[in-house]
């Protein structure tokens, strides 16, 4: 077992050897520009890209013609939101999204608000779920787009996408799903799930960083977007720029592996995740699970260890790589907006740690991590004035922290 152990698979994933192997010829051997129509170097690149489109399409139930290749999900989100908002501005200028979206969605919405769009940010349940009812209640005559995260990157909660998609279609409103964390973990079918726009990113599914795509529906309805990257007219005029051919090949192969290995990967991750949580909850007290215990990703575990601050815990488990919702770990010193929206309380937000299990995670690694976490939490509770007060029977919610002592 090698140290350090990587348990941050929502942040990124290692490139699968099979993906790397597929990519390599396209760096120095078959290095042509896929848009070079006049010679075999270009044709080889084009062929590889078209194969990748088919592989991506097969994973999500889309036609290869509906795949717009980008530099990742963030770019795809920008294209979807800004592109649709601008295209359909004469129909309306209202967008519905949620408070627990990725910053790429929230920041893009803020940008649109500055330009005159109105955005409704739906509040999720305590477990981070956005209900179809709350979406329905927010829809107006001038709503042009609903943008929601499929699987939450911080707490793993899965939204009822199919129900929301159905109701959007019934109302003639476009539905964009951020499936970055969902693909390869849960089944995604743009037809059955009534999705009009969808983004995904290679580096979350054992592919390379710097490449992803936006699915843009062509039928029922045909979705049109105003391009955000102008230039040579690539990707049917929706996204100009020479394609990152090796990256695209990697994206395609990664998607193919997700499709063939989905059940196996999910079962593997879920077993390890469940085992880890069983140990944590059995061997420690005052532990709180963030996110929905049922409706969630199979490989994500976001836990708050009360009375122990997240960054200090991460320091304690130095051979295990994870991330935290604590303010101390963010450059802005603000705790996670997702945990805030779920109203777990700032105290629990500061003590949260996210564990992400992956394709290559082993039982041995999980037990090592559990041992390390349990020991570190116990040690840090010895240092914690809050834990001491709780042991003395003090109810922390009654304490006036602004008083001198």
């Amino acid at each position, binding site marked *: 077992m090698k140290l350090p152990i990587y348990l941050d698979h929502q942040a990124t994933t290692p490139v699968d050897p099979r993906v790397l192997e597929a990519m390599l010829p396209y760096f120095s051997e078959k290095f042509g520009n896929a848009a070079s129509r006049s010679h075999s170097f270009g044709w080889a690149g084009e062929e590889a890209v078209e194969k990748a489109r088919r592989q991506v399409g097969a994973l999500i139930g889309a036609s290869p013609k509906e795949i717009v290749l980008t530099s990742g999900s963030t770019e795809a989100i920008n294209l979807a939101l800004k592109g649709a908002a601008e295209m359909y501005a004469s129909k309306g200028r209202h967008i519905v999204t949620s408070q627990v979206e990725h910053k790429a969605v929230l920041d893009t919405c803020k940008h649109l608000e500055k330009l005159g769009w109105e955005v409704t940010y739906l509040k999720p349940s305590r477990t981070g779920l956005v209900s179809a009812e709350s979406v329905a209640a927010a829809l107006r005559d001038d709503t042009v787009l609903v943008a929601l995260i499929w699987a939450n990157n911080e707490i793993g909660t899965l939204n009822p996408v199919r129900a929301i998609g159905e109701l959007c279609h019934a109302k003639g409103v476009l539905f964009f799903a951020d499936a970055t964390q969902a693909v390869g973990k849960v089944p995604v079918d743009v037809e059955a799930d009534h999705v009009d726009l969808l983004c995904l990113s290679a580096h979350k599914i054992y592919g390379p960083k710097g490449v992803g795509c936006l699915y843009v529906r062509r039928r029922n309805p045909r979705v049109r977007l105003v391009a955000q990257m102008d230039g040579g007219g690539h990707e049917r005029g929706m996204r100009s720029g020479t394609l990152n051919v090796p990256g695209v090949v990697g994206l395609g192969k990664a998607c193919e592996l997700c499709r063939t290995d989905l059940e196996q990967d999910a079962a593997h991750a879920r077993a390890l995740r469940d085992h880890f949580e069983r140990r944590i909850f059995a061997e420690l007290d005052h532990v709180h699970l963030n996110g929905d215990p049922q409706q969630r990703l199979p490989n994500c575990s976001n836990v708050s260890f009360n009375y122990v601050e997240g960054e*200090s815990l991460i320091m304690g488990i130095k051979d295990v790589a994870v991330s935290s919702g604590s303010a101390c*770990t963010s450059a802005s010193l603000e705790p996670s907006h997702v945990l805030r929206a779920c109203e777990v309380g*700032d105290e629990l937000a*500061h003590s949260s740690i996210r564990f992400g299990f992956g394709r290559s995670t082993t039982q041995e690694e999980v037990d090592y991590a559990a041992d390390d976490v349990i020991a570190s939490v116990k040690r840090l509770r010895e240092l914690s*004035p809050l834990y*001491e007060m709780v042991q003395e029977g003090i109810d*922390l919610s009654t304490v006036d*922290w602004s008083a001198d*002592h």
Partner: protein
Amino acid sequence: MAYSDKVLDHYNNPRNVGSLDKGRQNVGTGVVGAPECGDVMKLQIEVEGDRIVDAKFKTFGCGSAIASSSLATEWIKGRTVDEALEISNTEIVQELSLPPVKIHCSVLAEDAIKSAISDYKSKQAAGAAQERRQGQEQGAR
């Protein structure tokens, strides 16, 4: 986040972790920060004469916060109360090589020292006032 060796040292081997009996007349207790901010420090001092003979701390916070408060107890032990009041957060920042984003941890540690001393002093003042009242009652009999 790369920590300085000193921060790591204090984190792995914190000095003076624990509690003093806050009911004792010569013990001052300072609690600063708030759980919502992710930083709470409890710092206690035991004073004999005008000298701090013992200090203990407990901290809920990041590695830099733990190190700052651990260092604070190390520095004030053996100093007089007045000398302890002179400790400034910038000295803590320098000693631990804290980056700008962690400077507030050192500020909280300085606040904790001052809060513990303030508590000690108000206990002394209350004790002295109590004695005076008792003396007056006795004199009046």
